[in-house]
Structure formats: structure tokens, C-alpha cells
């Protein structure tokens, strides 16, 4: 195996120059690239974790909101049903009262009409009876008898009624 001092010196010089150049054209850029990529991957993973946590938080929030909305709607429906029941009861009561009033008014007016009709009828019957009696006993009765008779008829009619 050969040993040359010149080769030793050349090896040192050559390697130092080689190292200086290749460090600039190769190692620095490629290491920077690899480290940048590594950093980017680390950041991306962190960001993804963050986004996942955020999504989970939002999901829970929406879930809660949905639950609250569900409960609220249930409450609203219950309230509406209750209100409708109350309104129905009130309307029913009102209607019943109105019906009673109408009925009462009608009965009163019927009673009044009947009374009036009866009074008119009584008048009419009296006149008719006088007329009839006059026809039956024309001239055979005097004034006094006549009056007595008429009164008797009127009383009888009153009793009949």
C-alpha cells in the first residue's frame, strides 16, 4: 500500500474545497427543504388536531342548541294546546249564555203575544155573543133582562176561559 505525503496534502485541500462547495449547492438547500417539510408536516398535524377539536366543540354546541330548540318547541306546543283549551271553554260558555238569553227573550215575547191575543179574543167573543143573543131573542126581552143575560154570558165565558 502506497503512502504519499502529496496525496495526503491533496486529500485535505480537495476535501475542504469539495466540502465548501457541496455544502452550499447540495446540503444547505436539501436540509432546508427537509426541515421545512418536516416543520410543515408538524404544523399541519397540529392544525388538523385543532380543527378536529373545533369541529367536535361545534358539534356539541349544535347538539345542545338542537336539544334546547326541541324542548322549546315542545313547550310552545303545550302552551298553545292549553290556550286553545281555555279559549274553547270560554267561547262555549259565552255561547251557552247567549243561547240562554235568546231563549228567555223568546219565551217572554211569546208570553206577551199570547196574553195580548187572549185579551183580543175575549173582546171578540163578547161582541159575538151579544150579536148572537140579539138574533135569538130579538124583541122578546127587555132592557133589564137583556143586560142580565149579557152579564151571565160574559161570566160563563170568563169561567170557560
Amino acid at each position, binding site marked *: *500500500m*502506497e*503512502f*504519499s*505525503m*502529496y*496525496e*495526503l*496534502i*491533496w*486529500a*485535505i485541500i*480537495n*476535501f*475542504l*474545497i*469539495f*466540502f465548501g*462547495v*457541496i*455544502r452550499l*449547492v*447540495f*446540503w*444547505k*438547500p*436539501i*436540509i432546508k*427543504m*427537509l*426541515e*421545512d*417539510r418536516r416543520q*410543515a408536516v408538524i404544523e399541519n398535524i397540529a392544525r388538523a388536531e385543532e380543527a378536529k377539536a373545533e369541529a367536535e366543540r361545534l358539534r356539541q354546541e349544535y347538539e345542545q342548541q338542537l336539544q334546547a330548540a326541541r324542548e322549546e318547541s315542545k313547550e310552545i306546543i303545550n302552551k298553545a294546546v292549553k290556550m286553545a283549551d281555555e279559549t274553547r271553554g270560554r267561547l262555549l260558555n259565552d255561547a251557552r249564555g247567549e243561547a240562554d238569553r235568546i231563549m228567555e227573550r223568546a219565551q217572554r215575547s211569546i208570553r206577551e203575544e199570547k196574553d195580548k191575543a187572549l185579551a183580543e179574543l175575549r173582546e171578540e167573543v163578547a161582541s159575538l155573543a151579544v150579536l148572537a143573543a140579539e138574533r135569538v131573542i130579538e124583541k122578546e126581552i127587555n132592557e133589564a133582562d137583556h143586560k142580565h143575560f149579557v152579564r151571565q154570558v160574559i161570566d160563563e165565558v170568563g169561567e170557560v176561559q
Partner: protein
Amino acid sequence: MSWYELASAAGESGHSSDLIFVIPGIGLEVTSVVTTMWVIMGLLILLGWLTTRSMQRLPEGRLQNIMEMVVEALLGLLEQVMDRKRAVQYLPLLGSFFLFIIVSNYSGLIPGAGEIKGFKAPTSHWGVTAGLAIVVFVAVQLNGIRKKGLKYFKHFAEPVMMAPLMIPLNILEEVVKPFSLSLRLAANIYGGEVVLMGLLMAIPYFLPITVLGLEVVFGFIQAFIFTVLAAVYIGSATSEESH
């Protein structure tokens, strides 16, 4: 005793046989190994530039995908030795070692390597691996000092009870580290090439294929070991806890 003397004492001459030219003035010899180093480094820089020229956050090009895979694998390797922050910090240096060494190792398996003038696997030469190991050594010390200040030198004297004994031992250990690092790499690659060459001369058909396959694995393993050990040295020099 310097490395150079050590190596010379090991029996090899200080001069390379395949001299191509000498840089005038300073007298630096340019050998086949040096030119091959230039080509490999040039190609790697080109590849790196092509990769990052039009990078996308979501890679679509095959080149970017492949290179990202390589970089991620190296980063994963370093993360087993040190924390992620330091792994990213030292990835350029250690990754450059890995890329250069693995391509150098494999360049020796290309037919013609070592025979064509100006083409020789750099990592099969101890001089080259020693140069790389010296860079590792300096990087370890510099980063240790930069991270811990003067406290960095404290570990040379530990355990304190045995400081007079431990200081020379620890310094020796610190020097032995790059020595073994460079010798292991060069010897493995050189040995592999010698075996391959010998086999090719003895039985030129079929059998060398298995050795070639093994050499592909060894080439990777050696680049891997060099990088991991360098990472361990830098990691322990810059770690918070004492060692």
C-alpha cells in the same frame, strides 16, 4: 514520529509511481489518485447541484427522491449517534465524507481503475484516507472546543485521580483514532482490489464476479464505518455529558 515517517518506516516510498504533473512553484505532485479525486468530487458537486436546482416541496423528479432518500438515511444514521439538532448540524460534513468515500470505493471496481493513467481509486491510498482522517481529527477538536470552550480539554485529564497517567493516554487515544480510521479504510479497499486483481489474473471468468459482488458490499460497509466512527467522535466531543 509523524505519520509520514511512520508510513515511510512501513516500507513504502514517499513518492507515487504514477506521477502526472507537478504544480510549479510549490512542487505539489499530482498523481492519478488526485485527478480521480477531482473527477469524483466534481461529479458529486454536479449531482448535488442537479438535485437542488429545481427542488419541489412535493418531489416529482426521480433524482430528488433518490437523493432525499440518501440524505434521510444518513440523517437517521447520525440520529442514532447524537441528538437530532447536532445530527442536522454535522450532516453536511459527515455526509460529504460518506458520499466521497463510497464513490471512491466503487471507482476502484470500474474496469480500468489502476491501469488507466489518471484513474485510480483514491480511498485505496493511505495518503488520501489519512488526509480525510486528519480532517475528521481537526473537526472533532474544533467542534469540541466550539461547543464546550476550554472545558473540552478537561476530558483529557479524566479520571482526575489518575491525571498524570491519563493525560498522555487520552492524547494518544485521540491520535490513534484517525490513524486507525484511515488505515482501516485504505487497507480494506486496497486489499479488496489486490484480491480482485489477483483473481482476475488467475481465473478470469466467473469467479471474480462473486468477489466483485463482495467488494460492492465492502465498499459500502467501509464508507459506512468511516462515517459512523467520525460521527461518534464528533458526537462524544460535543455531547453535554462527560465520557
